[in-house]
């Protein structure tokens, strides 16, 4: 990648620190999967990678290519947008699956589902 040497020092420092910070966030997110103790807590760990990690790494890429002026920074904005929009779907799906199972097994510490009056009478 010879054209990367055209990057001025201040931009290189910025790109590197953003990239390292983003990578560190992603690593912390993965570490969270190991360290946190129950399923619902572990749900939070990957969201740190999808929000902090993705945004920082995309910002690094945006800064790099904006300074080099080799390409539009539109792609990174799209990545951030689509990751932000699609993560809640996965997260809610996983969370609801866990909730459904825990309620079915009647585990402690899991909030019950409120049944409306009309369904209570038929039980």
């Amino acid at each position: 990648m010879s054209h990367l040497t055209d990057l001025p020092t201040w931009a290189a420092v910025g790109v590197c620190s953003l990239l390292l910070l983003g990578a560190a966030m992603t690593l912390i997110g993965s570490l969270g999967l190991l360290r946190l103790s129950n399923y619902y807590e572990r749900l939070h760990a990957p969201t740190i990678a999808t929000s902090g990690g993705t945004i920082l790494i995309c910002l690094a890429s945006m800064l790099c290519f904006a300074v080099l002026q080799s390409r539009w920074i539109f792609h990174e904005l799209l990545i951030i947008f689509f990751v932000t929009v699609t993560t809640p779907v996965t997260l809610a799906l996983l969370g609801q699956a866990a909730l459904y199972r825990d309620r079915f097994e009647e585990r402690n510490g899991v909030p019950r589902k409120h049944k409306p009056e009309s369904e209570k009478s038929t039980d």
Partner: protein
Amino acid sequence: MRTWFPYPLLTTVLLVMWLLLNQSLAPGSILIGLVLGMVLGWVTLKLHPARSHLHRIGRAAGFLLEVIADIVRSNIAVASIILRAHRFPANAGFLTVDLDLEDENALALLACIMTATPGTAWLEYDRRQKTLLFHVLDLQNEEVWRGTVKRYEAALKEIFQ
């Protein structure tokens, strides 16, 4: 025109997005972009999305900055919780909040915001009871979390209704 392009704005955005992604204005790219926008417009029509009207765009910009600040803050907070998880186990728990947001798009946006801020996980929205069940990683003060969700709700209500 309406039968060919049921969502003109969506088709235009898709066309522009396609051209920007390809970085070309060649007739071939424009044609593929148009076909893509048209077909996806028909698919969207089949999905029957709820229409909502945006008011107060200026408020939306302020809200966006507020959310970005919250995302940064909660990223740092959750990172420190994970790094200290060995010595201090996380004090996590479930919370329920009454919401009176009617607009489906506003609810979807609220879900995006709550997922983008680590530390809160959207679990279940009860449409009949109008309550939201969510899980919080750091349950120091329940009222603060409820207040945060209420703050988002108030802003979204202002923007969407």
